[in-house]
């Protein structure tokens, strides 16, 4: 609902006042590169992956330059599980899976710096079903009907729950951050529409007849929810909103990024 309100305001403003957009040259300051950590541990085999990279200047291209040569490990109360480098800044442990209620600690040591983070595996909430709903806000850029996926699940009443959804259209991962929590829906059967924003009008992002659409549902830790929530708020540095800032990270030691231990379930449909 939050994102709905935001999109509503923007949509109304844009349709009402014919504004004009233009790419401009701005002189932006550069900084020394910062480390970026993306640590993921899931309840499925092969789901343990840590990516280490660095920030780039705004004028550089978007390719990730992975940082190799780091010591990466994940530990729980009993064991330390080392991750082995797979190249391009990716570190993996193919056998490690997260167990419910366990608290995991990520340690990354690179160039004399140590970054750590802890995260707990949440209980899995079952993804009941997914279905497509025609958008009421408008059409795709080419005029075809815009469709969104709605996810259906039953939120447990006893716990606070945080969810993240990842959408794949024909195996292409949607960039929009899709989050939900149970602040207003505790203990209810929930149908949440996943309103993604195709902000660069890329046709491959739209859901079109015949497309295979997969939704991955993740039950995430509150700190990870906060990370993605704040990452999303500052996503495009929109100077019209409050001053953007770096997201609230759960990584200690001064790196950007996050460490998320979460459950994973997937459902797929084919768009009619």
């Amino acid at each position, binding site marked *: 609902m939050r994102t709905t309100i935001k999109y509503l305001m923007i949509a109304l403003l844009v349709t*009402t006042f014919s504004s004009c957009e233009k790419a401009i040259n701005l002189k932006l300051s550069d900084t020394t590169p910062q480390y970026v950590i993306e640590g993921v541990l899931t309840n499925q085999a092969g789901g343990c992956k840590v990516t280490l990279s660095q920030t*780039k200047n705004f004028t550089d291209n*978007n390719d990730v330059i992975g940082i190799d040569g780091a010591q990466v490990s994940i530990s729980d109360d009993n064991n330390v599980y080392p991750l082995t480098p797979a190249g391009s800044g990716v570190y993996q442990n193919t056998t490690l899976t997260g167990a419910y209620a366990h608290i995991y600690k990520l340690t990354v040591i690179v160039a004399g710096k140590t970054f750590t983070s802890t995260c707990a595996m949440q209980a899995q909430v079952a993804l009941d079903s997914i279905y497509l709903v025609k958008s009421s806000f408008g059409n795709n850029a080419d005029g075809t009907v815009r469709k969104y996926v709605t996810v259906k699940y039953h939120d447990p009443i006893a716990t606070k729950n945080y969810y993240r959804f990842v959408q794949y259209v024909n195996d292409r991962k949607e960039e929009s951050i899709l989050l939900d929590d149970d602040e*207003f829906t505790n203990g209810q059967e929930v*149908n949440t529409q996943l309103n993604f924003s195709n902000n660069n009008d890329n046709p491959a992002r739209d859901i079109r007849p015949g497309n295979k659409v997969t939704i991955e549902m993740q039950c995430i830790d509150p700190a990870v929810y906060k990370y993605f*929530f704040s990452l999303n*708020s500052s996503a495009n*540095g929109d100077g019209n909103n409050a001053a953007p800032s770096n997201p609230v990270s759960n990584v200690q030691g001064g790196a950007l990024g996050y460490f998320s231990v979460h459950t994973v379930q997937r459902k797929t449909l084919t768009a009619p």
Partner: protein
Amino acid sequence: MKNNYPACSPMLIAQFMYFPAALRTALCALLLLTVSFQVKAQSPLDKPVTISIHNQPLKQALDQLTAASGVRFTYNETVAKSKITISVNAQNQPLGEVLKKALAPYPFSYTVLDQDIMIKYDTEKPKKQAAALAGGGKYTISGTVKSKQTGETVIGATIRATDVNQGTSSNEYGFYSLTLPAGDHQLAVSAVGQKSTLVPISLNSNQQLAIAMDNNEQSIQEVTITAKAPGTRDLANPQMGVEHLSIQETKNIPVLLGERDIIKTIQLLPGIKTAGEGSGGFYVRGGAADQNLILLDEAPVYNASHMLGFFSTFNSDAIKNISIYKGDMPAQYGGRLSSVLDIKMNDGNNQKFGVSGGVGLIAARINVEGPIQKNKSSFLISARRTYADAFLAFSKDTIAKKSQLYFYDINAKANYILGDKDRLYISGYFGKDVLKASDIAGINWGNTTATLRWNHIFNSQLFSNTSLIYSNYDYKINIKQDVNEFNIYSQIRDLNFKEDLQYYAGDKNTISFGVNAIYHTIKPGEISSTGNSGILSQNLQNRYALENAAYATNTWKATDRFSLTYGLRVSAFTILGEGDYYNLDADGNIISTQHYTSGQAVKTYVNPEPRIAAAYSLNDFSSVKASYARNAQNLHLISNSNSGSPTDKWAASTNLIKPELADQVSVGYYRDLKDHQYEFTVETYYKKMQNQVDYRNGANVFTNQPIETQLLYGIGRAYGAEFLLKKKTGRLTGWISYTLSKTERKIDGINNNQWYNARQDRTHDIAIVAMYKASEKWTFSANFIYYTGDAVTYPSGKYQVDGATYYYYTNRNADRIPAYNRLDLGATRQLKKSAKFESDLTFSLYNAYGSHNAYRIYFRDNKNDPSRTEAVRTTLFTFVPSISYNFKF
């Protein structure tokens, strides 16, 4: 010198020879006089005349006296060209007496010159008169200043006794009180948009005098004695940081889409900055948009913008006068840190019925007013409705086609004069915005205010106003999505009692004092939902608070040159139950909760707010002033949007949100140039702010958690210099304003606890406003605006998370949006002008050279080359022409 000679003529002559020479001359003169007396019988001054002259210029009056008496007058050019008017009513009275009375209030004296009388300009005369009268005691003259044509009270009219250099101005209800030495005086009365007038008075007891002024839109023929243009800044008054505008002064300034807008107009003055295009907010001296108290007939207006900020809620047709105080507000005002914008509505014409209105590109207006009982009571109804959404029907977009987007507002007022001493006013405002995207979603919001006021004049020196005020702001959001429907409702409501008294204690002191009590009810939001979304309908707890204040202030004219205003306002803000209040840890998590029952006091914040100001007149045309003021603010607008969204949250102080405080020191220099045709002012200020509120990084705006969990607190500072050169008379009028300023914040938890630029920090801000009356038919106008771009945070780098680009930020608000600049042009063509009917056409061109000013700048992957990122600028308005037709009958 003894002698024994018998008294005879030769002896007498002989003795005479011994007299001292001087005495001799005197005796000679006496002798001569006696002789001539006998011969001619009388001097020209004794000539009896019977004549009646009413308000004739001096020269014509003298000509008429010559015709009636046969006595000729001689005078120089100063006398011949004098614009003073005199009245004479004599039945067979000696000419000398007639002249003495007629010229008494003026600096002219007369002497006999042979058979003629010479009239000459005599600057010493008023002083001599004043000295002569000093022993005669003092009396007070008081009353109301009104417009002759409409019966509207005139605010801020200057009333000056020309002979003794004492004056006052009418208050916001047109009341004035002036204490003068007993005797004859001449009152010079001037006000913006009114013909200046001279009123002779003879004061030997306290006296009531209603002053009626002639409307004069062309204004400008000035009585030489008053010299100052009406509406000129009061150089001797200690009040600083204030701008008064009458609606007539602003009506030719070009505006967006031709809708005259008082809030946009004040943003052209120094120290008052726009919050940007498409925003209804404004910033005063580095303060935030919510630190401005906006009063409409004394009722606070919480959201002063229509259509997401493109238009202000104030319909210019219904407004008489506005004053904005930039932080140095008099003690009668309180509750906001940065400014008070005090807007007074017209009362309604109590002389004749009239209708005026206009039709523009996006809105139509109508204003109806007239007497209920002539001279006693009147009403006014003013309404406005936009029809911008009519254009949406032409849109190709099906959603836009079925959308609604309009606002309307209604101002209504009635007043009743109950006698010499009492007057009642009732006024109200109702406005609503509707924004609806087809059947999918909608927001509507609006303000309602109502004010009941009672003016009572206890005596010639004590004026009272009692107000009962109701104010309400609410918004409702409705969203339909698939099978779901959501409604969100939020409200802030005030009940307000105010008692203000003004005591004109003699010719040296004016004392104001009063009390104010406001009961606030804030409904932070209630959510209701139907459908399958799982969202549970819920009510957030209402917040209740009682805001009390008492104040007293005195303006003391210590000497002719030095005046001092000193006062104290004490505010007490009490947070009342029922409700839950919280204690939080450093991260904003709730540690404990305390429940308070209905009416139970949670916490009271008492803040003494001293206000002091002094003015020293260097001479007749320049002065220096200095002032200090403290203000406290207990209502905070929690907003993360700079464009002023209708859904911004008002929150009262709580146990955790402390009252915001501001201390401002300012110093200014004021000078009138070229015989008061121009005024030049420089004001500098330094302001320190405490308990400033901001959102935490990553705050969640839509939450049913207590708002404090999302907030951080800190301090602020702002300083600057403001320059204004204004021309108020002649064919060409307007002003140049320039502000050089800095405003910063330091908030624990933001920007590594270092000082950073507030978003509204703009180094340079220039506005040039010019209006030129080319002929009776055409008036042209132009504005030019330039300011440094807002302080914003741009990325210092970028990185990828989960396959998408995100940006890395370092120092908050260390970057700038490109500088803003714009030229607007306007022209008004008078079509018809008669006593019965007037009409005109107004043309305007907003952003005449199509400057591409940034409304927002954002960053994204390049559409054509997703491996690159780009900065994108959104521009709202380039070349917006408009035309509107206005009429009045």
